[in-house]
Structures are given as structure tokens and as C-alpha cells.
């Protein structure tokens, strides 16, 4: 347990000290994007890992929050309504939660591939709505020049404050997910995932548990969506189109569904590969390289990078234990079985 705490402290310190080591590109475009995009992926990992529900509409929910913030803080061409930013953020997050709730209501009675189909349909419907609606979404152009607020003299559009803002929000979301899974609701959700019939006979309203999970995921995705909006400074239908929708799934699959941290690991790998693939291969073929990397991860580690890390650690621990045994040390204290249980 102490080793784990130590690891977390080191990771936290590393993330806080990260700006000292890198330039603005790595700070914002890799770091900030990983944290914001990772939070959207986190909402998906939460749904899949604890609720067993695979949704493709998380980017859509993030888009709802993004569009709401843009609509209320950066009106263009007669579209939008200028409000104080705290109110705008509140409305945006409420709308994202509501969107999650509504998607949950629609999707909750389906399972597996049917949930996937329904949420994909919702995502595409929202994309075409933003593309063709001019009164609220400003059509093809969307909203540009959306700046984060300046709070108490701190301008969050600058690289360093933006990174720490992203880090704080991502850490809070991550902590919230870890906490929720240990609450009675979280345990009920995992029960619903494993055996809905048994939960129902115990008196739980299975549908309601699932809908609430969708609403929570909506709130998380909304927070990620706002960070994403501020990173890009603009939002348009392309931000909620099929590519970003699939990207979220890709990041989550890359990271793996074993552990919520997988969302951020996946987002990091996705962002780095996406940005640098073109440096290593002919410029017309770089998407092939991206595809091959993803294929390799999915092929060789179906449970993503976190699965790979976990297997690596177990393998290492077993080896160490064997080594210890061979040296005639106290072999019983760190047997492979025990270390596996610890994880």
C-alpha cells in the first residue's frame, strides 16, 4: 500500500513539475489536450468499466457543453447571448448532465452492440443538427474565438495556467470516479454490470442506476468538452463529427478499460502518435502508421496499455519472487499469488 501511495505521489509531483521540463507545445497541445480529451475518454471508461455500457455519444455530450459555453460567452453574428462566465459554465454543465441523462434514458434498455448503435445514431443526429441549424449552432462555421475567462488576474488562455486548470479538473474527475465506484451507488452499478437480474431481485431499479451513470458520465464529458473548447478556441460541427466520436473510443480502447487511469494513458498515447506520426513516415502515409500502432496495441494487448503494464508488473513480481526463493530468502512473504491479489 505504501508503495502505491509513493507511486501516486511521484506521479502527482511529476505532473506538477512537468511545465518546468517542456516547451509550450508539449505543455498545451500534448499535456492540456491529453487531460481534456482524457477526461472525455474517462467518462466512457467509467460507463464501460463499471456499468458495462459502451456509448459512442460521449463526444456529443462534450460538444453540448462546448457549444453551450461558446453560445453564452462568445456570441457571433447575432447567434448567442452573452452571460457572465460562471453562469455560462453552470448552464453548460447542467445541459451536459441533462444530455447524458436523456441519452441514458434512450439507451438504457439496450445492451452491447445495440447501445453502441443507438448512441452512434444520436451522435450523428447531433452532428447534422449542428451543421444545419443556424439559429443556435451557427451552422458550418460554428463559434470561433472562444477565450477562457480571466479569473483574479490569471489568464487561462495562457499556456501555464491552462495546463494547471486542465490538471486540476482532470484530477478532480479522476478522483470523483474513484470515489463513486466505492459508494453504494458505485457498487450497485457494478452489480448491475455483473448480474442485472440478481440486482433487480434485490430490489434495485436497474434502469435508474444505469440512467444515473449516464448522467454522471455526461457531467464528466461536459467538463472535458469545455477544456477541449478552450484549447481549440473554437467549436464547429467538425468537433462533434464522426472522427472525434471514434477518437474517444480509440483512446479508451488504447488505454484499456481495466482502470480509470487508462483513459488518460490512452489519450496521451493517442495524442502523441497523432501528432508525431507524420515525422516518421512519408507525409501521404502517416495515417497508415497511426492505424498500425493502434492495431498493434489492440492485437498484442486486448486490454490496452494499462493491461500491458499490469501484466508486465505481475511478470516482474513473479520473477523477483522466484529469484528471492532461489536465493533462499524468505520466499513466503511475496508469493506470486499474493502480489496478484494486491493489484
Amino acid at each position, binding site marked *: 500500500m505504501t508503495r502505491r501511495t509513493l507511486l501516486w505521489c511521484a506521479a502527482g509531483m511529476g505532473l506538477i513539475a512537468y511545465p518546468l521540463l517542456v*516547451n509550450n507545445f508539449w505543455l498545451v497541445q500534448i499535456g492540456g489536450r491529453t487531460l481534456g480529451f482524457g477526461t472525455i475518454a474517462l467518462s466512457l471508461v467509467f460507463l464501460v468499466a463499471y456499468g458495462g455500457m459502451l456509448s459512442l455519444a460521449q463526444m456529443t455530450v462534450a460538444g453540448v457543453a462546448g457549444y453551450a459555453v461558446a453560445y453564452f460567452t462568445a456570441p457571433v453574428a447575432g447567434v448567442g447571448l452573452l452571460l457572465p462566465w460562471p453562469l455560462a459554465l453552470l448552464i453548460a454543465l447542467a445541459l451536459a448532465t441533462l444530455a447524458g441523462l436523456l441519452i441514458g434514458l434512450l439507451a438504457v434498455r439496450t445492451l452491447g452492440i445495440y447501445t453502441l448503435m443507438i448512441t452512434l445514431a444520436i451522435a450523428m443526429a447531433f452532428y447534422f443538427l449542428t451543421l444545419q441549424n443556424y439559429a443556435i449552432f451557427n451552422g*458550418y462555421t460554428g463559434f*470561433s474565438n472562444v477565450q477562457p475567462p480571466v479569473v483574479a488576474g490569471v489568464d487561462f488562455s495562457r499556456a501555464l495556467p491552462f495546463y494547471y486548470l486542465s490538471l486540476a479538473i482532470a484530477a478532480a474527475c479522476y478522483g470523483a470516479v474513484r470515489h463513486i465506484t466505492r459508494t453504494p451507488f458505485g457498487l450497485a452499478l457494478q452489480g448491475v454490470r455483473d448480474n442485472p437480474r440478481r440486482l433487480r431481485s434485490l430490489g434495485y431499479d436497474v434502469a435508474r442506476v444505469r440512467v444515473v451513470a449516464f448522467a454522471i458520465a455526461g457531467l464528466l464529458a461536459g467538463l472535458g468538452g469545455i477544456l477541449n473548447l478552450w484549447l*481549440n478556441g473554437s467549436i464547429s460541427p467538425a468537433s462533434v463529427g464522426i472522427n472525434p466520436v471514434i477518437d474517444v473510443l480509440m483512446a479508451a480502447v488504447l488505454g484499456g478499460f481495466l482502470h480509470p487511469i487508462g483513459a488518460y494513458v490512452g489519450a496521451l498515447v493517442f495524442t502523441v502518435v497523432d501528432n508525431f506520426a507524420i515525422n516518421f513516415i512519408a507525409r501521404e502515409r502517416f495515417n497508415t502508421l497511426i492505424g498500425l500502432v493502434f492495431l498493434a496495441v489492440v492485437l498484442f494487448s486486448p486490454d490496452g496499455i494499462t493491461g500491458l503494464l499490469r501484466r508486465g508488473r505481475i511478470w516482474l513480481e513473479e520473477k523477483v519472487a522466484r*529469484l528471492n526463493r532461489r536465493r533462499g530468502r524468505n520466499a513466503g512473504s511475496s508469493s506470486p499469488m499474493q502480489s496478484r491479489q494486491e493489484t
Partner: protein
Amino acid sequence: MKHRSIRQFTGVAVLASALMSSTALYAQDDVIHFGGLATLEGAFAEPGADGLRGMELAFEEFGWEIDGKEIEFTSASSDGTPDVALESARRLIEQDDVDILVGPLSGSEGIRLAQYAKEQTGTTFLNGGSAAVETTLVDPAENFYRFNTDGAQWTAPLGEYLVEERGWDNIVIVSEDYSFPYAQIFGFMATYCEAGGTVSDKFFVPVGNNDYSSVIAQLPQAGGDVDGMYVVLGGSDAVNFLTQYAQMGGDLPIVGGTNAVDQTVLAARGQARQLLPGVLASGPISDNDDSEAWTTFVEAYRDHFGEEGLPSPSVFAYNYYTSTKAALTALQKVGGDLSNDHADLREALDTLELESPTGTVTINENRQATAAIYINEIVEDEEGDLTTEPLMRVESVDQFLGLGEDAYMELGLPSRDNPSCPS
């Protein structure tokens, strides 16, 4: 175990630092680092690749060096969306440390990058192929130059020509629903309505539409009170629409937007093809222009790229080439001096009179090009290929379409409903 983990850690650290500093080595005084941003994925992948060919052609012409300083070239891709364009531009500038960025390719990307240029005052931006009106009109950035004409400039001469030379005064418009076609319609109608023409109806379709039957059913018949239709569609949209229109027996005379007569459309097979010969359009280049500058450019393009390139350089190759050449010419004038936030370079650019393949290009106080525009007719050559034949060359079309800044600004910004001139 300790050794192993140290070794692993070292490996990871080396890899990470290699990534982070992959191009920091280039940040030397005797190197000028160019970035090229174009769409190498999605619907505009072919135009994007051709744009970068244009850039390479310009570097080739200058022997990849300015005053003994070597030219370093890094390219990046976007998929045509502002988000991805911004991401790639940030990588080029903040990570790869490019001095001069040429790009992006499409309208909305350009609007976004012109805003981003204001944050990056140490970099000089030259537009690639993007042709939205707003980029250099609304609060233009000091360090964003567009040596290409915009979508409205491309079509402005055509409106007047139709009324005065062809006697058309009533048309319908079929167009894609986004910023670049708005600009094209805007430029066209500015002179067309002024000359006395009317537009009885506009039909907007989403980009990537496959079924045009509902629009075609609403179009008037030939021989009625409408003289023809103005088709502002590009790529596969244009091919699909024209094919379905021909299949349904449509016979209205057609004039096309700049992208509707692009080689990507002209090279298409099938029924769309039979409607194309005789179609009028206007744009910054003409395939069959016989001026020496243009034929030299086409020769150089064919020599250098051969089978790999298009049969004739596209408008994107031309635009990227012109912008890159503008930067190189200005750099040569100041001996490659980039000190003091490119002060000398920008002064040279501001006053540059560039000899482009279509004649002299100058820029105005918004750093927007004034250049010649061609009115083209689509013709079939002896090999059966469709090309554009120049009917007329209009000299010095400026950003304000010859209306003067005040009158032009009064027109407002292009949108679905602006401008409108119903009968």
C-alpha cells in the same frame, strides 16, 4: 532488477527527449525553416498533396537556399477542420520552430489560423489555398499574408460578364452550405446584381450530399423565365449533382463556381461529363493560358513531378507556389535576415511586387492580394480531356472588387442570405 529498471527508465527518457527535441537541432542561424500545412487526409487530400507540390517547386526554383542559408521544410496535415489545422500549426510553430508557415488549404481553417497568427508574432504566415473572405477582412493579423485572391475575387468578374456579354439577367443558384461557397456567391452577385441581374432562388445543400433529386425537382425548366443556373459545388458533390441532373433530363445552361471546374471534376467520367463542355466559370488560373509565365510554370511542374502529379497544376499547386515564392523572393531581398521578429522580411513583403505564373501580384494594407482573374470556358481538347480555355483576363481584381473599401464593407459579410437581389 534495479539495473533493468534503470535501463528501461533511461530508454524511455532518451526516447521522450528525442521526441521532444526532434527538430530543436534545426534552430540554427544558417537555416531558414519553412512549415507547410495542407489537408493530406479527408475529402481535400488530393488538393492538399498538390499544394505541397507547389511549395516544393518554389524551393526547387531557389535551389533550397537563400544567401547561403539552407532551407529546411517540414510539412503537416489537417483534415480541413479548424481544430486539426490549429493543432498542426501549433506543432509546426511551437515544437518544430518553423520561421515561416505556408498554409492552410481551406476556408474555415484560414479564418482560425489568422487569429492564431496574432498570438505568434515571431512567425510569418502566408496563406496556402484558403479563400474565405473573412481571413484578411475582419480584424486582419499583422503577420498573416495572402498572396492569393479570395473566393469572392475569383467570381466577381463573372457576374458582370454574364449580364453584359451573355445577356443573362435571371438565374438560380445551387450551392454547398458553408463559408467558401458563400464567398463565391458573394463575389459573383456583387457585380451581377450591380449590372442589373436578379437571382430568383438559392438552393443550399450540405457538403457530401448524395441525393440531389429534391433540389433538381424544384429547378425551373430551360426556356422558362430563368436564363440558367450557377452551380457552386466542388469535388464529388459537383460530379454527383451533374450526373443526377443529366439523368433527370435537366437542360438549363450552367455557369460554375471555381471548384466546379477543377481538374478533380473535369477528369470525372459518366454522364456529368456531357454537361460540362461550354460551361463558364472564373478563377485565378486557366489551364490553357498561353502566357510565357504560365507555360513555364506548367513545364516545370510536369518536369519535376511527371506521373506523380496531376496532368496540369491545380489551383492549389498554384496558390501554394505563389505564396512560397513570395516568401522566398522577400527573403532574398533582405539576405535571409529574420532578426527582430522578421521586421525586414515583413517590410519587404509589404511592398513586394511578385511575378507569379499569372502575372504581377501585389498586396494591399490588409495584406490581401490584388491579381488577375480569368473567365474560362470548359473545352474538350483533341485527346478528349476537358480543360479550361481563357475567354477573358481581368487585370488587378482587388479585395474590394473594385467597389472601394467603404462600399464593399457596406455589403456586410457573406452568408446564406447575403447578398440577395430578387427580381
